């Protein structure tokens, strides 16, 4: 079983990486996961598998990771702090590693209020910062979270984290990103960028502090299907900023879906050419995985590099 993450090899060699996202279904068939994985295989370097996103019960991210691996695509297992205590997290991640998964993305997770089990109990035994720190220590110092020695076969993950330049307090977002890098984050995927001006200000602060030289930042982009979707995010999703111009452009478009894809491609090209310190792009085509190959191809990011 190979030990190094392909995503890590691509990023460490200085190539512009492409990741996407597959959301597991609300049932126990892997057919859709396999379909999406096969479709994306040649167009992305790795794909995130979301962990019960928006707190809606879905097929497990690690189980979905196995199906994705079997389709010849590298998974990035998402692990939220909402549903598992530190015992379950270590156990599940060691299991994931044994199944061939090499990338993990550590995040807080949406509050259960937003899901289909709003009366459930959240865990938050540890937070995302602590998860990053202890996974790094597991790998580099061969220690369980408790400090007990791992005698052999410690999981050696390529550790990812998220950053949200659109949440508040704005300046502290750069501090917190640095804190995550200090804790052990090796790659960062950002929240969906719609407000490019704010993202550029964020990256300017990141570069001033040289953080982009210590971590691989992948810019998050999302194609919009309609102006209503954009408006919904603008009004209802905490921690996201959608400028009015974007809503208007979709509203005035003859074919809004086409327009949404075009906007996304424009953003990728702009980021790649103009925003220094960004090492890749993370395409979150939410419930619209089919459109990923076209976005990658038309953004000039196809074919993807081969890794030995």
């Amino acid at each position, binding site marked *: 079983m190979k030990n190094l993450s392909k995503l890590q090899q691509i990023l460490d060699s200085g190539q512009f990486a492409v990741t996407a996202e597959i959301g597991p279904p609300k049932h126990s068939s892997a057919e859709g996961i396999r379909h999406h994985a096969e479709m994306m295989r040649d167009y992305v370097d790795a794909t995130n598998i979301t962990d019960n996103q928006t707190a809606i019960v879905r097929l497990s991210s690690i189980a979905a990771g196995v199906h994705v691996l079997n389709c010849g695509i590298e998974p990035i297992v998402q692990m939220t*702090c*909402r549903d598992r205590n*530190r015992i379950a997290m270590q156990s599940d991640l060691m299991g994931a590693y044994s199944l061939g998964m090499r990338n993990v993305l550590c*995040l*807080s*997770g*949406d*509050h259960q*209020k*937003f899901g289909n089990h709003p009366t459930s109990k*959240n865990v*938050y*035994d*540890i*937070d*995302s*910062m*602590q998860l990053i*720190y202890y996974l790094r220590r597991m790998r580099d110092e061969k220690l369980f*979270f408790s400090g007990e020695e791992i005698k052999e076969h410690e999981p050696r993950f390529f550790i990812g984290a*998220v*950053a*949200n330049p*659109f*949440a*508040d*307090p704005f300046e*502290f977002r750069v*501090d*917190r990103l*640095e*804190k995550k890098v*200090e*804790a052990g984050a090796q790659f960062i995927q950002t*929240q969906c960028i719609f407000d490019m001006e704010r993202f550029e200000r964020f990256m300017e602060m990141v570069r001033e502090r040289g953080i982009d030289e210590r971590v691989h930042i992948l810019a998050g982009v999302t194609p919009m299907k309609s102006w209503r979707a954009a408006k919904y995010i603008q009004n209802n999703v*905490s*921690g*996201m900023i959608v400028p009015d111009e974007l809503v208007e452009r979709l509203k005035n478009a003859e074919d809004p879906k086409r327009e949404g894809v075009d906007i996304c491609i424009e953003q990728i090209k702009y980021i790649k050419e103009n925003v220094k310190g960004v090492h890749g792009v993370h395409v979150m085509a939410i419930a619209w995985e089919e459109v990923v190959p076209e976005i990658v191809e038309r953004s000039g990011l196809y074919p993807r590099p081969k890794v030995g």
Partner: protein
Amino acid sequence: MIVAQQKPVEDIAQMIADCKKVLFVGCAGCVTVCLAGGEKETEVLASAMRIKRNLENNPLEATTFTCTRQCDPEYIVPLDNLVKDVDAIVSLACGVGVQYLAERFKDKWVVPALDTKFIGGSVTHGNWEEKCGLCGDCILHRTGGICPIIRCSKSILNGPCGGSQYGKCEVSKDVDCAWQLIYDRMKALGKLDKLMEFQPPKDWSKSRDGGPRKAIREDVMID
């Protein structure tokens, strides 16, 4: 203080539906301050039950008493004579008081009239807010005197999460983001560098996860 709120009258009536004589016991502690189970609320609840049962042609004999505190054995001793011939005791104390009554009066049906909500304080008259998560290992010196354990919806120690926007929590626009408050206060105090320190996971065994907790002070024990 402990903040509690009275259950709906219908729910309380249901708990004592088959009783003919009931003692309503108030508490002069926290629940008096938060206007949920003091002497006044006890009298009002007993009257409400009498009227309701009269209207249903099923009269209820309701007596009342308010203890200095229901969470201290010595203050519930005076109830010994009052409970003798009742079918049930309705406690208007927090969950602690209900249990003290149940423990002392082993052959009596004891029911709660309140929902014990949280520990906190009053914001304005009639408006109380939760402020402390009773974690058993206070960290307020690291967070500018603002508790992330209970005031952050995710109890995050290295916050804020990505759902914080315009000073509010992702859970609701009515909830302040505790970490925005912490950030603002630490910034004003010139202590932002403290927030860059990695905060390790909490020892939850000192909280409710370690089983029922005890506090022992040998120096004040008698015998």
